[in-house]
């Protein structure tokens, strides 16, 4: 099958490439761009490990073709840290609050939480849980992930983070 020329922006950089139309976006990111942060978990659009940010939406890149992303502006976990190399508030939150154990779901969780906080800067615990309901974690039981997102929201809002009593 003939290859198609695609161009898009990934983590702020212009990307031009040739892909077969059937190439899934997750395979393009991982295998052609060597961005192995987005993971292939379930490969059936359930687990959210492959979540990326695409034109202001959280998208499961295992269920989209690279050709569908022509002209898109994409951000993956590799593009989350600040320009000076310091961690994004969400990355810091996951470290400080122990929001990961094995780490497999973390890139998807952080990228999804990034969009959630863009849309709702001060989400309630319930809104956070609903907002990350498309991302599965098999280690943490979610409690510390929720705390990590609360930590990041507080930091981004410039207010002190207070852990809710358990």
């Amino acid at each position, binding site marked *: *099958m*003939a290859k*198609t020329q695609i161009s898009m922006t990934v983590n702020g950089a212009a990307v031009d490439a040739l892909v*077969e*139309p*059937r190439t*899934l976006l997750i*395979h393009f990111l991982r295998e052609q761009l060597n961005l192995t942060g987005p993971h292939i978990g379930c*490969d*059936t*659009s*359930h687990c*959210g490990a492959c*979540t990326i940010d695409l034109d202001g*939406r*959280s*998208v*499961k890149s295992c*269920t*989209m*073709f690279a*050709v*569908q992303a*022509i002209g898109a502006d994409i951000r993956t976990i590799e593009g989350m840290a600040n320009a000076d190399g310091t961690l994004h508030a969400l990355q810091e939150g996951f470290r400080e609050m122990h929001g990961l154990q094995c780490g497999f779901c973390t890139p998807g969780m952080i990228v*999804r939480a990034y969009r*959630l906080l863009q849309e709702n800067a001060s989400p309630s615990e319930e809104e956070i849980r*609903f*907002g*990350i*309901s*498309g991302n599965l974690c098999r280690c943490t039981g979610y409690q510390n992930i929720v705390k990590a997102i609360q930590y990041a929201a507080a930091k981004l809002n410039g207010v002190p983070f207070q852990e809710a009593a358990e």
Partner: protein
Amino acid sequence: MIPGPFAYHRPTSVKDALALLADLGDEARPLAGGHSLIPMMKLRLATPGHLVDLAGVADLKGIRAEGGDIVIGAMTTQHELVGSDLLARKIPILRETSLLIADPQVRYVGTLGGNVANGDPGNDMPAVMLCLGATYHVSGKGGDRRVAAREFYQGAYFTALEPGEILSAIRIPVPVAGHGHAYQKLKRKIGDYATAAAAVVLTLKGGGEVASCSIGLTNVAETPLWAEDAANILVGSRLDAATVKQAVAAAEAITSPASDQRGPAQYRTKMAGVMLARALARAKERARP
């Protein structure tokens, strides 16, 4: 999982999309949000030779009021339905239903048109469209036609769409102000299809009697169901327990679910009844005479 090879087309107008579908024939499939088609392609249960991506067709987007109707472009996503102030004011059952579909990521991409056109009995919007008395705008190379949602569904994945046609918009008559609504969905987890679900839109008279009622049921037959008899039983009543019980029995009687991982058929039928009773109670609470 890697899909079979195909050629990718990205038309920018409905006319060009229809011309492509006509020229490419059986080998071509229109692509909307892709969250039903792409998983099927990854499993090689679908192997289209051509995909006609409708994402670049601006005319298929948007939500607008037109007379007493609201017209929603087929490529409008569930996320956009959730965020629409116009829909929140005029047809709030659409927001309630959208939030019960899949998960946030899928709602950013999944479209209303794909949800209603695919003919998957597990999809939530078709029963809501039966309930609301929606009409589908269908475009083909030979011209446009309109099909009532209540006449659109013929079997699992079989609809009134002819080869080469696309469903371009959904037209919904705005329910009267003060109507009560509810979509009640039983599911095992976020992202699951309904074990059973019920959509209700009703209006009440000053004395609390039901003036009008419409009921749709999800995933308890090969097609979505419009429970006309059940709704008629309720008209004129005050939704007292005995009448609701009778209506629930009438609704259960038209179901024919499959036994699957979501439970045996008898259970799913009963759950359709439970969802209907809950939806009626919620709709009554929300209705203003």
